[in-house]
């Protein structure tokens, strides 16, 4: 998975996600989940991170599953039936619909993980520049900001503390530390931009790339495979 060109990967995954949002098929939605799961397993990306994503995803898909089950597509209020027969009263097609939607949420979660866990952010930015002709100024700006994040986080918590020490009560929705962080970030952005410029970066001139990414036929095969699975419900 790590070998697939990042731009092709993102396009195929976005397309898949768009297509399955129309899919009513339990089987093919499950197939996407299985394929993604297998790919993650092969790429050696099975870790705590996967659980961290799956936990909220499971919550969301379970609650949608129950909601659709109890008030199915037939539009009839199932609460009319007595409590004990609640589930059995809902028709078989309701269960199918609910499962399809619930699995779809799972599929989204897995597609997202498939991209984010198997793609190096730097390679992704390189690929966006080389395959999608994103401007170098924007791309390197994003990379620089990405690498500044830990510092921004550290300074933000310090700002909150400093303001509290001044005797101001801070609520989670207080804007004061945010505006301070914003002023600081503007200042840093300026500094980093000047540092980049001093290293000869001007975004316009021709530059070489250390990583030269190409789209190979395997990338196309993989993309077609992914999109085909997501479209299979139309034909079968």
């Amino acid at each position, binding site marked *: 998975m790590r070998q697939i060109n990042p731009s092709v990967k993102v396009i195929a995954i976005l397309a898949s996600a768009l297509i399955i949002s129309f899919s009513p098929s339990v089987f093919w939605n499950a197939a996407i989940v299985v394929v993604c799961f297998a790919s993650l397993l092969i790429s050696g990306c099975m870790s705590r991170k996967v659980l961290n994503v799956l936990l909220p995803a499971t919550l969301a898909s379970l609650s949608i599953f129950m909601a659709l089950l109890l008030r199915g597509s037939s539009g009839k209020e199932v609460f009319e039936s007595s409590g004990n027969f609640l589930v059995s009263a809902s028709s078989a097609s309701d269960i199918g619909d609910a499962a399809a939607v619930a699995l779809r949420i799972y599929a989204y979660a897995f597609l997202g993980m498939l991209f984010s866990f198997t793609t190096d952010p*730097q390679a992704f930015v390189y690929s966006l520049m080389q395959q999608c002709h994103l401007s170098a100024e924007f791309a*390197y700006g994003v*990379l*620089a900001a990405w*690498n500044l994040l*830990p*510092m921004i986080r550290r*300074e933000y918590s*310090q*700002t909150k*503390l*400093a*303001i*509290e*020490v*001044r*005797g*101001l009560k801070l609520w989670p929705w207080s804007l*004061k530390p945010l505006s*301070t962080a914003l*002023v*600081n970030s503007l*200042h*840093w952005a*300026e*500094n*980093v*931009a*000047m*540092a*980049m*410029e*001093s*290293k*000869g*970066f*001007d975004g*316009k*001139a*021709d*530059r*070489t*790339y*250390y*990583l*030269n990414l190409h789209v190979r036929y395997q990338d196309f095969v993989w993309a077609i495979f992914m999109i085909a699975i997501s479209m299979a419900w139309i034909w079968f």
Partner: protein
Amino acid sequence: MPSLLIQKTAMGNNACLIDDVTFRYFEKSERNILEHFSLSIKEGETVVILGDSGCGKSTLANLICGLYPENGGFLINGSVKVDGIEIKNLPPRKRREKISIVFQNPDLQFCMSNLRDELRFCLENAAVEAKEMDRRIEAFAAAYSISSLLDRPFQTLSGGEKQKASLCVAMIQESKVLVLDEPFANLDTASRDPFLDLLKQKRLKNPETTIIAIDHRAGNWTGLSPRWVVLGDKGKIISDGTSFPHLKTYSAYFTPVPAPTLSDADSFLKFRGTLIKPGKKEKAILEATDLSVKPGDMIVLLGPSGSGKTTLFLTLLGIKPYEGSITIDDKELRKQKKKDIYRDIGIVFQNPANQFIASTVLDEAKPADIELLASFGLANYSRYSPYMLSQGQQRKLGVISMIAGKQRLLLLDEPTYGQDTPSTAAIMKCLAERTGKGLSVIFSTHDEELASLYANKIWRIRNGRIYETDKSIG
């Protein structure tokens, strides 16, 4: 040795020619940062430009590199030529061949996540072929023995290592002029030396490279036997020559404040068998068995960077967990509400811009009045936004607003960071007056001179322990 090399090449061409430059930040403002400033620097020379903060040193560095006026300010008059070409007319890529720079703040110079990637980024900018890049980086790393730095994430590097990495980035560009803008602003002596060693190697390997360093301390640079240029207000050249300039030290600015009369009063803050931890589940990094703070104490906290000075402050503010006991007025710290702790203890962080809550300097300092602002030289700025002040001025304002809060104990994290001698002296003097009236201060620093001049107690951190040492032993 380096001085010999300088003499050999000093007959060469002008590497950098600054001619009658007048520069200001706002087009219509009356305040010029540099006024009719001229300086010529020969190829292969090592020049150290000294001056107090606000004299236009950093502005000058940015002008020489062509970063100003492109990124800010207005060049009203004059020209800056590097290697015979007007620098502001060159695109960044051509400029890089002439000149490269190491900035003050080690956290704001990199756009990649480690040195190897950052070096590649530079070579990409120079349109070097991909195959050639690795060869050059390896050759460079071998020549200067910096291979161990290449793949460590920047986040895990110390400030000194980051600055060294930044020097590597500047060096691999093989520019004719190397500008260093206060690279040691927040480094202790120990982390300064590897940087200087690297620079000396460069000097030996490429005697034709011109080195321009900017600083407010001369002591950092004596090993390079440079030409010293001392700047005054608006960039006026006060002295220029090869003999070591006699700059004022802290003691020249400091009139001893009478020893606090209250200091035999009972200690209000006590550490007893305290273990300080950076996080709940982490191991303790600092041990304080028996320390106490009395009213009127001026305590300096000395220790290498990363030894836990900031962590100690955060513990006192109730942010970090600890084992054992820390008491304020015999009440256990961890049992007190944060609000009550903050009534007793205030802090000024390294980056004072974090703590501003008002939109003007005067409001920020309230309930302090304009007179206190004036004693810090800030009266003229009372209607400015705090964010428009220079970093040195911001720190003064941070201290004023904390004094105004009337806490009993004030914590200062590295008050000398980015500060010149007079500003530091002004802050410390004001604090010394307050301690005479019963305020207690703990400040962290790695500046031994500052410590011995102002503190009445020294707390040293060594091997994970904080202990009080006699002042005379130092």
